[in-house]
């Protein structure tokens, strides 16, 4: 499949953004966010910026971006539509949280606010944050399902496709959370660091299993089946339907990267999962340099994820290529 750069950028950026929002949501839900309102609102805004940048980037691959709102209508059947609906829904609790934390920066209102809600405010934050986190992960789940539901592309039509999208999103969110903690001068929770390292290695294992699956997967149908002959019949291309490349061949028949796939997989695994884990180990043993090390970790992870996502498209073969 043709790796459209807008879609790669969208899935990586918004994946990180939704992951960060999910981590923030979890911390709200379990009242672990005993940090300043400034950090809370910064984390929230950064995740919203990443999500929005990703969404804007994804609409740029539409032929008619001005009609994008129509994509919210078919949530009964279409995973793409469900993704759109959840992406919009996620903004509701997220913006409510922006409001709640933003009020603290306006002294006059915040006094009134505190009198009105007293101790209940933390409960509201837990619930709203939990909902935001849930919607965030549900959106990523839908993204994964868009690909996993396509039976025409066996490399994607696989039980691990969606879980990998979710795990990569949460892992990258955790890593960004650690960087932001360091940036705002908070001690980094050692348990969270350990969990992130485990998640990175779990991602590596999942991707390794996925790549092994991609190498072994077949269409299940032959060129002969595609044109209605008995499965074992030998079919050779004689006269092409068209002399130059057409839409189908460009969109579905992309195979530039396949010969470099092994090398690129190593880059993705090393930059995406091994290097960030090593950086986090350094954070673990030397918290004084947490900011530098976690910055290195996130840069490496983003590079690795871009390569991983590019491969996800470039390595996927579409059944229609049987005709060509």
């Amino acid at each position, binding site marked *: 499949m043709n790796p459209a750069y807008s879609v790669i950028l969208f899935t990586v950026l918004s994946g990180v953004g939704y992951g960060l929002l999910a981590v923030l949501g979890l911390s709200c839900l379990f009242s672990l966010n005993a940090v300043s309102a400034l950090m809370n609102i910064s984390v929230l805004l950064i995740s919203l910026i990443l999500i929005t940048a990703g969404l804007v980037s994804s609409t740029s691959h539409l032929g008619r971006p001005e009609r994008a709102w129509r994509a919210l209508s*078919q949530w009964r059947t279409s995973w*793409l539509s469900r993704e759109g609906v959840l992406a919009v829904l996620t903004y509701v609790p997220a913006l409510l949280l922006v409001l709640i934390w933003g009020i603290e920066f306006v002294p006059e209102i915040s006094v009134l606010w505190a009198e009105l809600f007293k101790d209940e405010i933390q409960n509201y934050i837990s619930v709203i944050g939990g909902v935001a986190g849930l919607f965030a992960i549900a959106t990523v789940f839908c993204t994964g399902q868009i690909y996993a539901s396509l039976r025409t592309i066996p490399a994607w039509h696989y039980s691990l496709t969606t879980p990998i999208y979710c795990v990569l999103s949460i892992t990258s969110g955790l890593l960004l959370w650690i960087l932001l903690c360091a940036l705002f001068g908070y001690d980094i929770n050692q348990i969270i660091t350990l969990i992130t390292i485990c998640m990175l290695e779990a991602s590596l294992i999942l991707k390794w299993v996925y790549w092994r699956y991609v190498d072994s997967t077949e269409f299940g149908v032959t060129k002969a089946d595609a044109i209605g002959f008995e499965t074992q*019949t030998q*079919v050779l291309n004689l006269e092409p339907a068209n002399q130059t490349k057409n839409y189908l061949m460009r969109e579905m028949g992309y195979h530039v990267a396949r010969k470099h796939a092994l090398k690129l997989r190593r880059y993705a695994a090393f930059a995406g999962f091994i290097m960030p884990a090593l950086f986090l180990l350094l954070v673990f043993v030397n918290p004084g340099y947490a900011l530098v090390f976690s910055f290195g970790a996130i840069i490496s992870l983003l590079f690795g994820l871009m390569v991983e996502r590019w491969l996800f498209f470039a390595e996927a073969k579409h059944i229609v290529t049987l005709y060509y």
Partner: protein
Amino acid sequence: MTNLPSQTDKKLGLLIDLDICVGCHGCVTSCKEWNSTDDMLPLSDFDSYGDSPDGIFLNRVHGYEINDGMTAQTVHFPRSCLHCEQPECVSVCPTGASYKRQEDGIVLVNPETCIGCKLCSWACPYGAREYDHNQGIMKKCTLCVDRIYNEELAEEDRKPACVLACPTSARLFGDFSDPHSEVSILSQERGGVALMESLDYKPVNRYLPPRKKQLSDKCENTSEQYSYGSKNRSSDAILDNFFSWLDKKLS
């Protein structure tokens, strides 16, 4: 609405006879012509007179060599939308622009609401959909829905343009849900095939396989009749070998 109708009143589709298709591409060009004129948005072409011309076609003809171990033969294979009963191109559509009609089973794209996300073309294993970069929307075979019900046309002309254009009558149009229709009867008699049935998209269109070529004794006799005569064969072979050796040495 991308919910599929549980059942359609008719199953309109094409029956394509691979035995007599000569690969003239007449159906390809007449399809392009009909679907680019009058009220239709044109099927865009790009770089028409340049080095790598490209364009949207709703119907394409491939040429293959088929070898079943005994005989090899050329097959011309026209490929267009099969108007599946389970079209996943429709159910993945996020806007409802793609839909399957309940009255006749035709799968269509509404050009007014398509956002050009291309997901439908990913969901189709048959390559029936092509994206129009000029208009930013997806295009596909309409089974000439604007011809087949068009009362301004003479009744014999109310057929898809590709069917009317075919000089060998390799394309037939009809209702596959009616067991007495011409397409159903022929498909039944000649073993009409649905493409890649195991994928379970349930295509409506059927392809009639080419009749098996027989390697009969008669064939072998004929080939002997037309050979140079057995007496001179060995000397011919020596000469042939000599010339091929000479050719190699000189070149």
